[in-house]
Structure formats: C-alpha cells, structure tokens
C-alpha cells in the first residue's frame, strides 16, 4: 500500500514566483532573499524523504476557472497540468506531471466518501502551485502531482471543518492506494494578507505565527476559529489558511514537526511548516 511520508503547508503569492525567476537571473530582491533561503531546508527535507507522488490541495485565482462555473472542490485527472496565463504570460517552466491512475483512485474514493468533486480532465495551474514548486523541485519535474482546487475567490467558501474532513478522506484514500508510492501531502494558501479595499496591505505576523504554532498539536482550536475572524485579523485572503487544514487532516494525529519558517517580504505573510510521519 502507498504511504504518506509527510506533508507541508506553504503560502503562495504571484510575486514569490516572479521574484524567484528574477533571482535566478541574478537579481535577488533583498526583502525576498530570506524567504528563498528559509525554504531551502524544505527542499533538503524533500530530497531526504524522496516522495514519488505529491497530493496538492490549493486554490485557483480565476486563472483556470471563472464564474461561468466555479467549483467549490475540484480534482485534476490528467497526465499534464500546464501553467495558466495569469495576464502577464507564463513563466519558463514545463507542465506539471500528473498520474491519472492516482487521480482516478482519489476521485473514486473521495466521491464515494461524500466529497462531490468536479472532475477536470483539462486543468491549468496558476501561482497557487507554480509560485513555490520551482524552488522546492528542480525542472524538469520528476514527481507526478494530484491537484485538488478549492474555491477561495467567491463566498461562501468551504468551512474549516469541511477542509479538515476532506484532508481526513484524502489521507485514507492515499493509504488505500494499491502501489507502494511514497506520498507527500501539500496544503497551500496565503497567510495574512489583504489585497483590495482601503485595508490593502495589512499584515499580521502574530496571527500567522499563532497559526503555525498550533497547526501541529492543536488544529481543532484553529478549526473552531470562525473564518471571519481570520479575515478580520489577517485580511480577507487569510481565509486561504483553511486549505492548510486539508493537509494537516491527511496526516496522523501525532506527527513530528520537521521544520517551520516565517517571514514577511512585502504584502503577504510567507510561512511554511513541514510535518514528518513517524516510522
């Protein structure tokens, strides 16, 4: 049977991807350099645990979906996931690799388990995944992914508890996969930030660090905190933290916190936390 070797939560922003490209071209921005150095141990950890599949729960920012049909929960079932054009042209990276057998298994298990996912045989992926993946993995990509997209652009968004339950179901489904794959589960959503309205640019480092501190050992306390409270204290887009519950829920109750890092480069709190399953 497949095994979950660990998981991580990570923030995403368009600028962290664009700044990485500029840095690789020789121009690292001083305010972004700590983040790229701070995530280096995550890359080292991934090399050590050597996953051969990634289960990624993320949110699309109206780059693939639009309001003609905007699924609350969707899964990709494809051999390739191209990069979405976010309005300024794609960055120079190949398509993500998919694994249709894994995606079909996950779809089967999750739908039969009560999660009515929209099934996407064509899915382009935006900075929700592409902003951090290129510096945690080297192109050309070797590890196929199974993406699940969560609506965070139009309220109502799924509840904290629903995403935790989704994570529990994802964890059970992965453990029931017939192969011997080593799977890492990823939950990615922005930390404190608000990018519209007169409150544009608010930053709550205390909120983000509080979240990172409790997600490992006391997730229920965070789940019980209303999403409006995250939005009020951390900005409207801090609601994306709910996605991290899907990652945490997929893992065991007792996990080792292998690494955690936080910084605030520009207008978005940037954090990462890595959990490793005990063997």
């Amino acid at each position, binding site marked *: 049977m497949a095994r979950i070797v660990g998981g991580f939560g990570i923030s995403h922003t368009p600028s962290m991807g664009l700044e990485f490209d500029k840095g690789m071209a020789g121009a690292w921005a001083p305010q972004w350099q700590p983040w790229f150095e701070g995530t280096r141990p995550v890359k080292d950890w991934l090399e050590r645990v050597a996953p051969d599949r990634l289960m990624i729960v993320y949110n699309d*920012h*109206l*780059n693939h979906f*639009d*309001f*003609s049909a905007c699924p609350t929960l969707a899964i990709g079932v494809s051999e390739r996931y191209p990069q*979405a*054009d*976010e*309005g*300024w*042209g794609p960055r120079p990276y190949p398509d993500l690799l998919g694994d249709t057998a894994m995606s079909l298994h996950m779809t089967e298990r999750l739908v039969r388990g009560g999660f009515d996912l929209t099934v996407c045989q064509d899915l382009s992926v935006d900075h929700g995944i592409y902003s951090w993946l290129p510096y945690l993995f080297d192109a050309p990509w070797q590890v196929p992914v199974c993406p699940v997209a969560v609506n965070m*652009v*139009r*309220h*109502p968004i799924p509840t904290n508890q629903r995403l935790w339950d989704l994570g529990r179901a994802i964890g059970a489904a992965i453990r029931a996969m017939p192969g011997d794959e080593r799977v890492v589960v990823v939950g990615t959503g922005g930390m404190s930030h*608000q*990018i*519209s*309205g*007169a*409150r*544009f*640019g*608010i*930053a*709550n*480092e*205390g*909120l983000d660090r*509080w979240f990172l501190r409790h997600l490992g050992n006391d997730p229920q306390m965070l789940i019980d*905190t*209303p999403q*409006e*409270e*995250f*939005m*009020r*204290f951390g900005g*409207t887009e801090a609601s994306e933290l709910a996605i991290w519950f899907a990652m945490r829920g997929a893992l065991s109750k007792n996990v080792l916190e292998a690494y955690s890092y936080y910084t*605030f480069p*520009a*207008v978005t709190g940037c954090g990462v936390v890595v959990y490793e399953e005990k063997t």
Partner: protein
Amino acid sequence: MSNSMALTLDPPGTFVYTAEMALKGHRLTAFGLSLRQAQNREAFLADEAGYMRRHGLSDADIAHVLARDWTALIAAGGHLQSMLKVAATVGQNLWHIGAHNAGMTVEELMAICPRRISAVPGEES
C-alpha cells in the same frame, strides 16, 4: 498617513466577494478574465472601449476602466483577481489597485506597507 485600521470587514476598508457581488459584477469580471489570452489583450489595447462594448459592459463600467478607477470597479463587483488582469494588460499592477483603494499614491502605500496589526482571535484588546 494613518495606519491604524478598524478590525472590521465593512467597505470601503474591505470588500468581501459575496454571491451578490459576483452577480452584480458578472460581465465585468468575465471581461477581465478574457484578458488571460494574449490575443484578447492585443484586441483590447487596440480599442479599449470597442472591446468592452463587445463584451456587454455598461457605460459606467467602461468609463471606470478607461479612468483606471479600480475602487469603483471593485465596488461594482469586478473581482480583484480579474481586475488585476486588466491592470496587468494596461501596464499597472496590484500596487496601483491597492493605492487607489487606499486613497494614496503607490509610493505612499509602499512606504507604509506592511501595515502591521498585532492581535489574534480571542485576544482582542
């Protein structure tokens, strides 16, 4: 420039993108998202008003886009992620939208960001 902010979710500080906003701004948001395609960006830049009329935008929405009135567009239900594509197409970015929303220049906004709040749920003073 004051940097103290109320911890509320009310406009104009905050626009929560509700179903009502989505319905009100349906065409406007769809127009912005059409600019995800390079050929549409070219067509828009060649004739902004004509392109928007072909997409069924109201005269008010067209005027707001031509004036780069990001605050009016957000209030009209244009989703931020969609208006961001309009901004990118006309050579602006998130900071221009944010500065307009916050009622200051881009330089002023950049100078006060990050706008720090320190409180967590349950510990409000």
